[in-house]
């Protein structure tokens, strides 16, 4: 293989021109033939589409669904684009067990949050520290199997850390606690360099006029509705909405800092951790 061009190289001097048997078929195969034989196995389509479904829908598909997905893939000549198009537009993809039932990975949580809040991704050192503390040390999975994902992202520890990191993100404050913790290396080694680098970091925070209109900021109902739609694409439970209103009502004059805290509170819910 030539990795740069994703093509097989032909070396006539060491080429085997004889018959070869592969997965029950015999012939004078070259590399492309072998790949063709692999992808023409019914199991290949099941495997690939099952992985894609699991990645986007957050669950291992049932056997029936996996079969249906594989059929769509094969019917489209094993092309990804039409397959994904069908998958994303299928009723099953919006089933009640899929929608808002996938735990966001730390990366989904961080990038999803900055997209929804229309703010900047924190500087690399902070983004790294946050995702690492939340259990996803990028490019360093715990083992060759990778992260277990799903509900295993959530422990009492990582959940509180998500809630506190939300504060750093919206307020643009430095996650000092995170700094103290991720500076330590396993084995107890110090990380003075990291601590110093952290002191130079400046965080942006959320800009309210980007995400709320003047009218929404003047009307608490409209503001909560708008923020719910932005952060959850659905409504929170009644008691939770009430809790938010109670918070906003507790302020005599609603200033930006209070609205920002309200956003942080909305992100500090079980509901915000799923997508």
């Amino acid at each position, binding site marked *: 293989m030539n990795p740069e061009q994703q093509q097989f190289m032909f070396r006539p001097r060491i080429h085997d021109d004889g018959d070869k048997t592969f997965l029950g078929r015999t012939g004078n195969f070259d590399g492309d033939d072998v790949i063709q034989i692999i992808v023409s196995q019914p199991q290949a389509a099941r495997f690939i589409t099952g992985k894609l479904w699991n990645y986007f829908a957050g669950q291992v598909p049932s056997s*029936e669904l996996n079969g249906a997905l594989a059929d769509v893939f094969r019917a489209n000549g094993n092309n990804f684009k039409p397959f994904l198009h069908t998958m994303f537009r299928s009723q*099953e993809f919006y*089933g009640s067990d899929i929608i808002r039932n996938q735990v966001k990975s730390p990366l989904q949580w961080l990038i999803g949050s900055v997209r929804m809040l229309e703010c900047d991704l924190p500087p690399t050192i902070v983004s790294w520290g946050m995702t690492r503390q939340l259990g996803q040390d990028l490019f360093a999975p*715990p083992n060759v199997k990778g992260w277990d994902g799903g509900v295993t992202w959530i422990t009492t*520890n990582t959940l509180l850390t998500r809630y506190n990191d939300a504060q750093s993100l919206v307020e643009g404050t430095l996650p000092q606690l995170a700094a103290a913790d991720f500076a330590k290396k396993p084995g107890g080694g110090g990380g003075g360099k990291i601590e110093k680098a952290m002191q130079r970091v400046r965080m942006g925070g959320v800009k309210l006029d980007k995400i709320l209109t003047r009218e929404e900021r003047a009307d608490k109902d409209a503001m909560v509705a708008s923020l719910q739609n932005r952060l959850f694409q659905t409504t929170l*439970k009644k008691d939770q909405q009430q809790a938010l209103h109670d918070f906003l009502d507790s302020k005599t004059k609603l200033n930006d800092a209070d609205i920002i805290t309200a956003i942080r509170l909305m992100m*500090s819910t079980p509901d915000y*951790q799923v997508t």
Partner: protein
Amino acid sequence: MKNEITLQTRREFLRRTVLGSALSWTVPVFLADTFSALQAQAADSATQTITGKDDTILVVLQMAGGNDGINTVVPYSNDFYHKARPQIGLKADNVLKLNDDIGFNSALKGFKELYDGGELSVIQGVGYPNPNRSHFRSTEIWQTASDSDRIEKYGWVGRYFDNACAGADPAVGVTIGSQLPESFFAKHPKGICFSNPQNYRFMSNGQATEDSYKKLNEVEMSGDMHADSPQDDSSGDMLNSGGSIGMLPAGMPMTGGKAVDFISRTALDAQHSSDEIRGIAARVQNQATYPGSLLGNSLKMVAKLIGGGLPTRIYYVSQGGYDTHTNQVNTQTRLLGDLGDSMKAFVEDMKAQGNMGRVLVMTFSEFGRRVSENANGGTDHGAAAPMFIVGNKVKAGLLGKYPSLAPQDLYQGDVKYNVDFRSVYAGVLETWLKTKSAPILGKKFEPLQVV
């Protein structure tokens, strides 16, 4: 019938339902599950239901990376040993002798003192059939107590919680670290974990924020039961939908409960335990001097939590770095020194607290290492190795048999196990945690009498 339940703490709620108050339909699914599990438990008097503050405690200590058991419990007078390890083999004057054949690595002074005091047992040659030399797979086998050719979804500690601790306080299992070990994975996950008690809290900028956070997280309605929830509206066609993929019966089977239910319960556990743990961390003083290492700090924390009366049955701590492919002697000396000293300090602390009789520490590592050293002054992944159990009621001394190092007795260069680690788990479960081991370990293993 609508029965409003004010949830002050989850523990109180469970206590009340245990006492038989009616279960209303407003109770979320996961609590209902817990309740039915409790009833099943009540029918089986052999298992305990609620943890108390006088129960026995198990501390599981993971030595991650695959500790070289042969240079830990050293067969210093064995010729095969010195032949296989000309560079890193330890001579007789460099071990803490247990008898004429075997001695501790000299870094394990702490262990030697405990051993001499009758508080440490060495279980020799522990492993499992068809050993796997991959870190993650072998760790998985130890964590799930599975056969090496089977994949288990849940961990052995998790199955202990599922089988014997329904309705227990969420702090029944405590992991010092940011991630839950696989052994804690359970059908009804329990347990809390944290690395630093100071950070283990919701950071708040005022009372109103704090109050609101609590209200937002104490709502325990399951998505399934929530009438307003859009996901219940299964009849409505999504605007974006391009139609069914086809061949699917309506309503696919659920693979499990709603993710948000699990997170809600974790949020409650986090909220309640964070106050409790920070309180204990501030209130309880350690009464021994620990090494300043990660392990030392973890055991220090465990000691505080025990002293503070947390109703925990299983604590989990770990120490990493045992993957000694190169320059093993220095690394292992440092790690074992830390292990022995931390353990010694922990035992002193427990004695000063008066809790030594309640506590048992069990160590494990995913595998031992090969009998022969490699060319880099290290050792590669192997198989069986010793486990250590510490407590004042243990069967102190050497248990099991030292595996033979004779070349003809080795399997692909590794020693053969003679105690299955699941017999050790079975012994700990039966004799220490007083519960039946077969439902937890999947089958009957002869319990090793560890106490």
